[in-house]
């Protein structure tokens, strides 16, 4: 009883503080200084139609490298924590039969999901989306695959190689930026191209493709580890 009262009190006080912020909030009518620079000069300097992508990949590219590192760290900690042996990857569990609907639908949907994921990370500089989103979409395809056939044996060597190669390529493109253009992760190592086409915005489509492959491989790896670390029969 005392506990519930205290909880209600905490939530109420939080709600009151939020209400004060909310009631004093006024919608902004113009951009702040740095955003004005990004939006006014972004198309010219970076060549990406999607200004959020221009900020994520080029203006704050170092941040993106940090994000990729955090994802890698998560995958490493999970690998360390779940401690899978080689025979665990080969193990199969007795599971309830998966429904016919799920199996049939997954056969049709998985290629389309992969294609859509690739589309999203290739067009990150033109449309809403990008490497992280595309990678997450690819990983949903893998999740569907695991749900439809729980004893599937994903080739984790391929996943590890895709992850490693795309991670290293991302850093190499960043270093090429120092050599050929203005600084680390500068996208002008390739020509900016015609604004609004697929092959434009310099290195952004390439960087985002590597990010997308890396994120997709990493999340697939995590999902595979969750599935394979089930010891007992379900």
């Amino acid at each position, binding site marked *: 009883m005392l506990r519930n009262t205290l909880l209600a009190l905490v939530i109420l006080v*939080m709600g009151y503080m*939020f209400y004060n912020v*909310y009631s004093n909030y006024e919608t902004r009518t113009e951009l702040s200084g740095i955003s004005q620079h990004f939006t006014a000069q972004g198309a010219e300097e970076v060549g990406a139609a999607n200004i959020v992508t221009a900020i994520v990949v080029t203006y704050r590219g170092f941040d993106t490298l940090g994000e990729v590192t955090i*994802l890698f760290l998560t995958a490493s900690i999970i690998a360390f924590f779940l401690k899978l042996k080689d025979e665990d990857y080969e193990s199969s569990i007795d599971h309830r039969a998966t429904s016919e609907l799920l199996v049939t639908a997954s056969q049709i949907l998985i290629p389309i999901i992969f294609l859509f994921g690739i589309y999203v990370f290739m067009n990150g500089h033109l449309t809403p989306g990008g490497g*992280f989103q595309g990678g997450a979409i690819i990983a949903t395809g893998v999740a569907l695959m695991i749900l439809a056939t729980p004893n599937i044996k994903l080739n984790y060597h391929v996943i590890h190689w895709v992850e490693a190669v795309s991670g290293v390529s991302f850093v190499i493109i960043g270093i090429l930026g120092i050599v050929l253009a203005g600084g680390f992760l500068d996208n002008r190592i390739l020509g900016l191209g015609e604004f609004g086409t697929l092959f434009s915005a310099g290195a952004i489509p390439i960087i985002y493709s590597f990010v997308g492959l890396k994120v997709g491989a990493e999340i697939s790896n995590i999902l595979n580890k969750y599935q394979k*670390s089930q010891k007992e029969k379900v």
Partner: protein
Amino acid sequence: MENFDLGHISLLIGFLLILVGFWGVLTQKNIIKIIVGFTILNTGINILMVSLGYVKGKTAPIIDNAVAQTGNHDVSASVVDPVPQALVLTAIVIGFGVTALMLAYAMKLYNAKKTLEINKFNDLKW
């Protein structure tokens, strides 16, 4: 209430989701439900950050025909703030990492005691 627009709506939804998530984290006994509470909290904070970048009556920061028509070809006069959106992208990725780690811990805890009730994990209680 006279200035009730998209910014206010998303701010309100963000605050409500934060409260719901916080309530879930504090009151639920099942570890999976606590993790769901954390993700709702996370989503609320993300919506809050995006809504703080909203500029009244402006469109998404992607340069296309819609942007060219509204702002007389001046991009910075026709789009919302892109910086909070870029930062939220980072926050979503970190939120994903945290959720994945919490799920791995939940799996380990379940393997250790065959239960997900948080009250059963009282080894450090005296």
